[in-house]
């Protein structure tokens, strides 16, 4: 027997605690009714965006996501800086569809191929030797002349025609010796006052 148990207040509290509590069976229903009457909270788009949330990823998905991000980084690096040290802004233009916005240093040059063919394109150091970059168009309906006009920077340009998938030099322009791939190319000097 302790002093606390002898105290009349302790005895009174214990008696009250032992007395069964009578609950109102309708209380729960009233509370829920009150909750339902409350307007639902409306979250804005911004709130949804900034609301922190847990993201569950499997290890495989995590690896794939990381690889994708690395790939995007590599691609961006390659896109911005080529291996030859020039940024894309420094790379020569492929083909400008129009001459508007032409740099002052560029000259509009026309290339002509005479001969029958079903498809002719121009390749050279100005378009990365890409046979799809500069298609030539028929000048005459019979298809004996093909032409393309494009802006070129001043200087020496080496080029060739791709005639029905065959690379041929322009025989009416100065030829450049075979550069190791079995066929000579042609040379166009731009911006020297000569029309070579």
């Amino acid at each position, binding site marked *: 027997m302790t002093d606390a148990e002898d105290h009349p207040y302790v005895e009174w509290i214990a008696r009250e605690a032992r007395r069964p509590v009578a609950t109102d069976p309708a209380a729960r229903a009233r509370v829920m009714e009150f909750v339902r009457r409350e307007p639902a909270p409306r979250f804005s788009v911004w709130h949804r965006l900034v609301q922190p949330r847990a993201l569950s990823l499997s290890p495989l998905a995590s690896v*794939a996501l990381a690889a994708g991000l690395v*790939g995007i980084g590599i691609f961006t690096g*390659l896109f911005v800086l080529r291996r030859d040290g*020039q940024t894309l802004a420094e790379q020569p233009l492929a083909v400008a569809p129009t001459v508007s916005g032409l740099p002052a240093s560029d000259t509009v040059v026309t290339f002509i191929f005479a001969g029958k063919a079903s498809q002719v394109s121009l390749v050279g150091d100005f378009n990365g030797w890409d046979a799809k970059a500069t298609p030539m168009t028929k000048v005459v309906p019979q298809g004996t002349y093909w032409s393309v006009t494009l802006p070129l920077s001043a200087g020496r340009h080496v080029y060739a025609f791709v005639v029905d998938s065959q690379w041929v030099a322009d025989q009416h322009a*100065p030829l450049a010796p*075979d550069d190791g791939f079995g066929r000579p190319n042609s040379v166009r000097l731009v911006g020297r006052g000569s029309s070579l």
Partner: protein
Amino acid sequence: MTRYRSLIRGAAGLVACLASQAVAQASDPLSKLDPNSRFAVEAMIDSARVAGLPSRMLWLRAVEGINKGADSRRIVAAVRERFVHLKDARAVLSQATDDELAAAADLLEAKVKPEALIPFRNPGRGRSPLLALTILGDLVTRGVPRDDALSAISKFWMGGAGDAEFMGLFRGVESDILQGLNPGAALQNRVREFPGRAPSSIKPTTTPPAGEPETPNS
């Protein structure tokens, strides 16, 4: 459901990764070379850049080979040859522009000796040997005997010939060759049109028999 969501996320990541690699390959033509060849080409490009040579010409040579369908070994050899010839051309034409170096390197690729470039160095103020070197390369490529072409163009150049004379010589020789004349004879005939320019070293060249037109070297 969670498993499917993970699978979809993984697939999306993989697709993004493959797509980025594909785009990177498309934007970098050198990626079409095998790894060893690419390393060799990139090493030469870096060396050219360090040496102050126009490294872009090496990159373009490699891209040209790739687009022409040449195999990697041939591309590396062509790039190496270009690198060596650019260095040799720079050694002779120390003050040359990039275009002049390229024209001179073309001549070296056509088996012209580096010493033959000596007349074209230090051309003087306002004068460029670019056109002369370009026409010389053209003559050699069209089959004019190397020594004859070199002798004629050197004499033109040292005699102070201008663009109009070089252009006239080129147009005349080109026209004659395309009509079937022997390239050496075509040069000889056309040089005579420029009094005082014809070098004495050009020997008479016979025209080929009828029906056997000369074709340019290729």
